[in-house]
């Protein structure tokens, strides 16, 4: 193994990259722009989703009449959940975004409040108010949750007005369905990381396989004492450098700008490496069948851009029609996005293992296919 060449190749590749402002833009600045723009848009939240889970733990006449208000709101599809079901588990299994829990004591609070208005000897104190209803939301879908939050707030406000004429007898205690207090940006950033690695790897591979071929660099290397393995290793080291540098810059900007909160663990590193190999392999496969540099760029765009939108990079797949969800199952970027989200955000060990495993399988298949399909010698 010619380590001095691998070292020289890595160092000079980094220099070359730093001198290529266009490449630096697409690898670093473009994802940062996406974070800033999408973060700003979705921090406000505007979208439509109507399924509302309601679990009534009070089972009183008052709670019945309260929940019946939601049935009368056009567009809200109320799903009543029995007392013995775990709301968060149900939300995850059924891909539901918002749940409202009416805790035990809801009816008693109203009764006691009303009594206190007529009974001067009542022990009821306003200090015990407001009585909190529990709202559980999935922060990955900021748009849906914000609409339902507004609806629920309006209903509670109206309910308060009807009972007290102004005093807030009820309010909302909100928590996240994924166990921690996440923002939309926490869910968006893993998608941007997957997308950024995908584009830089695919286009990097295409450049090596078309531009280097056109410029005679591959022909020259064939006549020099470098093995195919040494060349691939040196290039993959550089590509991994690119992946990690852009990933860490994305996380850093997300943290500094939007207070990003993510977990960095062994699966995160495995996913960065696996994704880099996977999409480098895909680029090599594209480069095998498309000879011209410009055509290869277009072919790369034709594959990566639809994949970006169809694999749930910017929007949760649950908002998409069924057939698009089915298509996503065949897209490697979907597993990358879900892998990063589960590893970095949900901290769901089982799903992280599952998605990381699939990413690594994709990586092995694509990379090996890419190596074997790449032509080193001319006909």
């Amino acid at each position, binding site marked *: 193994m010619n380590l001095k060449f691998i070292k*020289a190749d890595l160092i*000079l590749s980094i*220099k*070359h990259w730093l*001198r290529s402002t266009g490449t630096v833009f697409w690898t670093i600045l473009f994802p940062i722009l996406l974070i800033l723009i999408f973060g700003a848009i979705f921090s406000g939240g505007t979208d439509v989703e109507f399924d509302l889970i309601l679990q009534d733990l009070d089972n009183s006449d008052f709670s019945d009449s309260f929940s019946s208000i939601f049935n009368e709101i056009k567009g809200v599809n109320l799903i009543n959940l029995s007392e013995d079901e775990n709301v968060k588990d149900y939300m995850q299994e059924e891909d539901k975004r918002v749940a409202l829990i009416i805790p035990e004591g809801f009816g008693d609070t109203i009764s006691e409040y009303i009594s206190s208005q007529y009974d001067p000897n009542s022990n009821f104190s306003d200090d015990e108010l407001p009585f909190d209803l529990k709202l559980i939301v999935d922060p990955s879908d900021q748009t849906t949750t914000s609409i339902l939050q507004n609806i629920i707030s309006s209903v509670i406000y109206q309910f308060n007005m009807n009972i007290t004429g102004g005093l807030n007898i009820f309010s909302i205690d909100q928590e996240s369905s994924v166990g921690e207090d996440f923002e939309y940006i926490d869910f968006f950033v893993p998608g941007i990381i997957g997308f950024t690695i995908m584009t830089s790897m695919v286009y990097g591979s295409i450049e090596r396989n078309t531009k280097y071929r056109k410029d005679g660099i591959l022909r020259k290397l*064939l006549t*020099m*004492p470098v093995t195919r393995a040494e060349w691939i290793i040196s290039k993959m080291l550089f590509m991994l450098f690119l992946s990690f540098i852009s990933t860490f810059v994305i996380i850093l900007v997300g943290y500094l700008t939007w207070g990003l909160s993510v977990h960095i663990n062994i699966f995160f590193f495995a996913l960065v490496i696996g994704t880099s190999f996977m999409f480098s392999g895909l680029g090599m496969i594209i480069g095998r069948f498309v000879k011209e540099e410009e055509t290869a760029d277009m072919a790369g765009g034709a594959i990566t851009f639809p994949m970006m939108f169809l694999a749930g990079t910017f929007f949760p797949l649950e908002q998409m029609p069924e057939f698009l969800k089915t298509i996503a199952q065949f897209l490697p970027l979907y597993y990358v996005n879900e892998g990063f989200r589960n590893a970095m955000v949900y901290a769901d060990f089982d799903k992280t293992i599952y998605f990381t495993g699939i990413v690594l399988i994709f990586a092995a298949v694509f990379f090996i296919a890419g190596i074997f399909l790449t032509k080193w010698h*001319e006909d």
Partner: protein
Amino acid sequence: MVEKKIQCPKCKKIITISGNYGDVKTLRCPDCGTEGKFSFKKYYEDEDFAVEVKNLKKIYGDLTAVNDISFSVKKGEVFAFLGPNGAGKTTTVEMIESIRKPSSGTIKVLGKDISSSFDDIKEKIGILPQEFHSFEKYTVRETLFYFSQLYENPANIDDIINAMDLESEKNKLYKDLSGGLKQRVGVAISLVNDPQIIFLDEPSTGLDPKARREVWEVIAGLRNKGKTVFLTTHYMEEAEFLADHITIIHKGDIIAQGSLDDLINRYGEGSILRIKNCKTLGIFDFLQDKGFDISKEGNGDIAVKLKNREEALEVLSILKHECVEYSTIDIRRSNLEEIFLKLTGSKLTEVSN
């Protein structure tokens, strides 16, 4: 002095002749009168050759790109592989460089068969591929350093920079260099391992005349340093200026090979002296009577085919003594363009374009 026995191609009589290596003898068959030339070629040992190609063939489907060609390149010479675009030059050189696989035939480089020993040969050859462009955002020095790191015993890259007169360009990015300088860097890259043979595939294609001349100077400098240069080109002037040995390939076949003088002697018309716009009557007959091979052309021009330098001086002397009136005189030697035209029926420049 060596003695050779040859057979008359017409009557099959065996004729014995003697001469020294390098001599070209004109002989006449004593039986049938057939005339011909025989050259006493030097006998070379295997180790004298940098490249030996035997019965090389490359077939793509119905197309025979290289058709059973054989040639050899002596160590220390500039070997020009001349031919129009599509003649099979690059296909041949890329087979020698192990980039393409031959359909049949054998190739030896520095005495070793490339099919089994190319990994050893890689350390001893330098290559400038056709239309080569290096990494755009490496400086000249970084470029040479990068490629030098591939070799076990790289040459000193600062020495190469000096030798190639790239000192003032060494910190410039490759993309900012002129076409001529890029080619000079390309040649410099091929020297990073101090190779014995340098393959230059169309090194001056696309360059302006000044830049092309600069590249020629670089190549001439390599020969002066004792390097073997295998040059593929479709520029006849390049081959004429640089080559010790020229092999002409056309449609996959080798149609002629030898030194420039050999080729001109064998296929050319020698040198022609032209008396332009001659106004003195009788000078044509006078020269003819003196035994000159002479012909009339348009506008009163007279063409005298010269056998040697002395004949040229004699014609000039006659023109002076006879007070011949004319506008100008020029003497032109046959060139590769004419040879190519004679051998193929088409001009090299036209075929290349």
